[in-house]
């Protein structure tokens, strides 16, 4: 099935969007309806390093994690929770491991649901294992194992299926360290989108077959790499005006999952999900101030503005003063959701949304572009040429530059360095052709020559 491209916006205007409400709510798991008028905490965790030594140890670790979370939710009186298990590589490389973990977790969740009525769902995020030591192997033997991991988890308890896929990453890693904007566009916008269409068509088939939810992807491996390398205000590894362009380009790439059958909720670390929500109307998970256990960002409140599920990214399982980490962080997430749900119930949702957005709006160019009114504009630029994966990615990048420039003329302060990096990026974008075939051909020649680990056959090129 060919992807059905978006050429229009789900929302008539930016102000129509808020948290906890989507155009197309998703029913999942044990009594949940996501994006249907309330927000839901989504806790994500990682086993302690030594737990990966055997399947038995790993299953036991996830049983502890799941029980701890469910117990804390009930103890403090929260009505709903989503658990996200991001696979460690052993669980995806050996699909039966992932399946056993899913089964063990779901058994515990069912017990709590039956006993207390707490609404819950289990997301399993399969690891993108499609590579060997030397090269990405997106379409080789590992692809079968990858799909098998989805199917086995879906058959054994997972309700929501996700992945952080890596198509284009070999080029992106090279380009981002060289301020190479066309390379980033090629990696995320073109190669990433090509790979996304293949995998999400297949994952959506598995979801349909197993009665589970094809939930969506995130450009963690590229846009988040840029954000992570960019770091804080004083870090000197990447201009934030470059990182924001990677983020803008990641939106049309992550959109492909929904064009190929996914229905949401999109995965937490997709900071681009606000743009995707504006285009699709589907529910999205987001993360920000509550993901400081995993990484810092410069928009901790702002990204909460239109979330449907609210996540902590990931935390290693271990003890803290207030309980285990998963108990502490799930409680924090759930209190945030309680506040948002109170705002929804008292019709103060748009006030709270705007307060969260404004508190970070001028903190950084990345935050500025992701403020819901500006994110909506990037969405419009994408759907304008929605049928062309290259042009829509280029449009997103160009609109992003324009938005940040306008911000800089207003109250968004940029350093001279950031201003110059933005100007250089804009010039690089202006020099690009409008013809996708020419761009793809030029990039194929250039990167085959410069990036030795680039294998065009991974993308059917």
């Amino acid at each position, binding site marked *: 099935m060919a992807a059905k491209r978006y050429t229009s916006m789900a929302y008539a205007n930016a102000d129509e969007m808020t948290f906890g409400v989507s155009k197309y709510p998703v029913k999942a798991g044990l009594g949940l309806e996501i994006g249907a008028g309330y927000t839901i905490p989504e806790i994500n965790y990682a*086993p302690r390093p030594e*737990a990966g030594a055997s399947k038995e140890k790993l299953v036991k670790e996830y049983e502890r994690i799941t029980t701890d979370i469910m117990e804390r939710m009930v103890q403090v009186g929260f009505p709903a929770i989503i658990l996200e298990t991001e696979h460690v590589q052993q669980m995806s490389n050996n699909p039966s491991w992932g399946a056993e973990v899913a089964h063990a977790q779901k058994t515990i969740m069912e017990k709590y649901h039956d006993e207390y009525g707490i609404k819950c769902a289990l997301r399993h995020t399969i690891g993108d294992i499609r590579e060997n*030591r030397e090269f990405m192997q997106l379409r080789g033997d590992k692809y079968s194992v990858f799909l098998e991991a989805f199917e086995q988890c879906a058959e054994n308890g997972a309700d929501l299926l996700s992945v952080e896929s890596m198509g284009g990453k070999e080029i992106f890693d090279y380009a981002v360290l060289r301020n190479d904007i066309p390379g980033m566009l090629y990696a995320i916008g073109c190669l990433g989108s090509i790979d996304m269409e293949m995998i999400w068509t297949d994952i959506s088939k598995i979801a349909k077959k197993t009665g589970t939810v094809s939930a969506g992807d995130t450009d963690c491996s590229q846009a988040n790499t840029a954000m992570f390398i960019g770091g804080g205000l004083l870090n*000197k590894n990447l201009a934030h005006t470059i990182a924001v362009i990677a983020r803008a380009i990641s939106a049309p790439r992550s959109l492909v999952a929904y064009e190929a059958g996914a229905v949401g909720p999109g995965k937490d670390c997709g900071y681009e999900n606000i743009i995707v929500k504006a285009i699709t109307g589907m529910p999205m998970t987001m993360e920000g101030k509550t993901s400081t256990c995993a990484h810092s960002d410069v928009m901790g409140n702002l990204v909460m503005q239109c979330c449907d599920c609210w996540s902590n990214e990931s935390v290693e399982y271990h003890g803290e003063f207030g309980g285990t980490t998963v108990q502490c962080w799930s409680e924090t997430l759930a209190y945030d959701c309680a506040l948002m749900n109170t705002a929804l119930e008292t019709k103060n949702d748009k006030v709270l949304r*705007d307060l969260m957005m404004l508190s970070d709006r*001028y903190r950084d160019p990345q935050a500025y572009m992701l403020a819901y009114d500006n994110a909506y504009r990037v969405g419009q630029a994408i759907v304008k040429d929605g049928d062309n994966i290259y042009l829509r990615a280029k449009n997103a990048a160009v609109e992003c530059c324009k938005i940040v420039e306008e911000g800089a003329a207003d109250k968004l302060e940029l350093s001279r*360095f950031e201003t110059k990096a933005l100007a250089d990026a804009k010039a690089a974008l202006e020099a690009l052709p409008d013809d996708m075939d020419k761009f793809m051909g030029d990039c194929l020649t250039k990167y085959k020559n410069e990036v030795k680990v680039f294998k065009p056959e991974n993308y059917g090129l």
Partner: protein
Amino acid sequence: MLDFTEASLKKVLTRYNVALEKAMTPEEAAEELYPKDELIYPIAKAIFEGEEDDVVEGLEAAIDAGKDPINLIDDALMVGMGVVIKLYDEGIIFLPNVMMSADAMLDGIEYCKENSGATPKTKGTVVCHVAEGDVHDIGKNIVTALLRANGFNVVDLGRDVPAEEVLDAVKKEKPIMLTGTALMTTTMYAFKEVNDKLLENGIKIPFACGGGAVNQDFVSQFALGVYGEEAADAPKIADAIIAGTTDITALRDMFHKH
């Protein structure tokens, strides 16, 4: 839509990078640091600008004028790279500039080697790898580029490297330091295995570890571990080692920040 006034905004956030930006542009700062020799200057400047072709052109002119190709590595290429590293350390230029300069420097070194029968001397050898089970190698790629930019010979074992293979490489290369990077909590456990294998074989070199989920507490749990919070710490640790600090506790005192 709600918005701030200029005054109210300042009560909520400060963009310290803007407030503290240096007055001098990177180009002006670099100009002050280039050597004045008319044959060396264009090479150093081409390194700073990351222009491979100009580096080779400058080297060609210097060799034609009688300069020794191997000496040009230290006297021109490393001098240019020194300008880049100094400005990076001072926060005047950013990592992509360093990466592009390092690419140009490596092309220049190759050109010098091709034009001389001799082998250039380096500050020492460092073996670098990504932990077994982990294929995320952008951090390792930054580490190797920064080490090379600082004049070290790097033996890059790549990603997803079994502990036994790391041991074999250390035995063969006799490095001053080993580096290990990992993104995930589950794969970083491989560092302990590498550490144990080195000790079993009587090898006690510093093992600098860093990456996404890696933290100082974890690295401090194994005897040879020295935690590097930033990729830029790798050449600094290596420099400390060649300056005489080889004791792990002393290195931890210098580089552990938390």
